């Protein structure tokens, strides 16, 4: 479970990126986090992954309280409950597809025997039908994102957090990637996806948390509401 209570974030340069964020994501939920560029989406994700600390408020992620007293060891343990996916995939170019996924298990201390069983399983789960001895740059964007999702899944996290996972993909690949995340959610993993692609969001009947200028302006199942639509609405 993810809980943010009255979260504020000021960056060192004085930018107030988040203003009183209250948000709860139950286990097994799927939610989109949407909003225009600069609205604070990435800031929320960075707080959830303990890359940065909130300036004020309370943040709880899968049982870990993310305050500035969080020890580095605990931080690592918290991150093992998360699978993180980025727009730019962040695969290691020197490693093969197989090694990129196995790497996540190896560096968290999984025994080799377990790695050999688990990696093919998740590669199959994400529907990657390529030679796993190939390097990331020999794959298409959609395939690379599948590898990244496989890596996020391989340590069996309870939550997947994706920051613009379809930002570098064409519409067809984007839809496939969202459907893959939906499938993963149906298998029991909580999923939080940041995106600004309205068309894509509207194809799924999911919870949409809408952010603007550091504030949550809507949160519900209805679909994507842009800032412009919000402003336009009263005039109608």
């Amino acid at each position, binding site marked *: 479970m993810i809980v943010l209570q009255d979260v504020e974030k000021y960056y060192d340069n004085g930018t107030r990126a988040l203003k009183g964020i209250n948000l709860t994501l139950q286990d097994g939920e799927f939610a989109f986090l949407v909003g225009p560029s600069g609205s604070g989406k990435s800031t929320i994700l960075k707080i959830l*992954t303990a890359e940065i600390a909130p300036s004020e408020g309370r943040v709880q992620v899968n049982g870990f309280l993310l305050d500035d007293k969080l020890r*580095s*060891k605990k931080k*690592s*343990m*918290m*991150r*093992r409950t*998360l699978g*993180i996916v980025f727009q730019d995939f*962040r695969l*290691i170019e020197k490693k093969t597809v197989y090694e990129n996924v196995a*790497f*996540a298990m*190896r*560096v*968290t*201390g999984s*025994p*080799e025997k377990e790695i050999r069983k688990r990696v093919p399983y998740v590669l199959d789960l994400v529907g990657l039908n390529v030679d796993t001895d190939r390097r990331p740059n020999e794959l298409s964007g959609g395939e690379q994102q599948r590898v990244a999702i496989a*890596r996020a899944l391989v*340590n069996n996290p309870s939550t997947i957090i994706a920051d613009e996972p379809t930002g570098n993909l064409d519409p067809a690949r984007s839809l496939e990637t969202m459907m893959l995340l939906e499938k993963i959610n149906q298998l029991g993993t909580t999923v939080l996806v940041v995106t600004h692609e309205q068309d894509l969001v509207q194809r799924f009947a999911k919870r949409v948390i809408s952010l603007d200028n550091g504030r949550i302006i809507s949160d519900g199942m209805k679909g994507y509401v842009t800032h412009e639509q919000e402003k336009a609405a009263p005039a109608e």
Partner: protein
Amino acid sequence: MNKKKPRRRSNLLYYIKEGVSSIFRYGFMSFASVVIIVACLLIMGSFLLVALNVNDLIEEAESRNHVVAFIDYSLSEEDARGLEGRILATQNVEGATFVSRRQIYEEWLERHGEEYVAGIDEEVFRHRFIIDLEDIAYMRETLPHLRHIPGVALVDAPIEMAEWFVLLRNVAAGVFVSIVGVLLVISIFIISNTIKLATFDRREEIAIMRMVGATNWFIRWPFIFQGFILGLTGAALAFGIQWGIYGILADLIMRVSGGHLIQVVSFASIADMMIMLFLGTGFVVGTIGSVIAIRNYLKV
């Protein structure tokens, strides 16, 4: 309990494997690190070997720096001999040998012949003690204590000579410490730069490790291993080279001197000490180098 053990071992293997692969990936820097460690240890080792070999010579030379305490004319030989206890009780005195005026007189006779000594009475000479000091560096401080012993008339000491020896000793030690110190600092600097380069090159990999929940120590250990493998490799190489060079030199000296003049300390007799010293230094240098590198680069 038996679930944790194989995991530990596989982690250790992982650290070593990663450390070694990093060494080969930055081959030139690793080579430079090892070369500088070898140079450092060879200089250190050579100094020590020279010191061990000349130590006997120096001790021999230093022991010639006797202090002579002349005894008052009024004391009989028996009374004079009685001062030995007081002299030996003086701080920094190691030993004292009594020489009577009779012995001195006879030495003179022997050395210069009857005619030269004719007319010189035995009474002209004083009874005396030839005194060995524990440390000639404190000769100047020891003299007043000897002079103030009742019955001691005069004290003669080669103070300038002693101070020259002490100066030589201190200069040699100073040169040794500063050369080795500078080389150690350079070694640490080069190792830490090699490792910094490795951490910088792998920053994306490190970011991913963090992201998937690798612990800080899991991220750091390979770099620490990289450092101390470099250090230990340098130490092992330096030891082998030192042994080889020393063997050749010792052989040469023994052959030239016919084995009479100089007795060379055998390397085998000090090999244990040398290898411990080399490996210890290599380990410390390698580890400090990597700790400096990761302290700057792998912040929590």
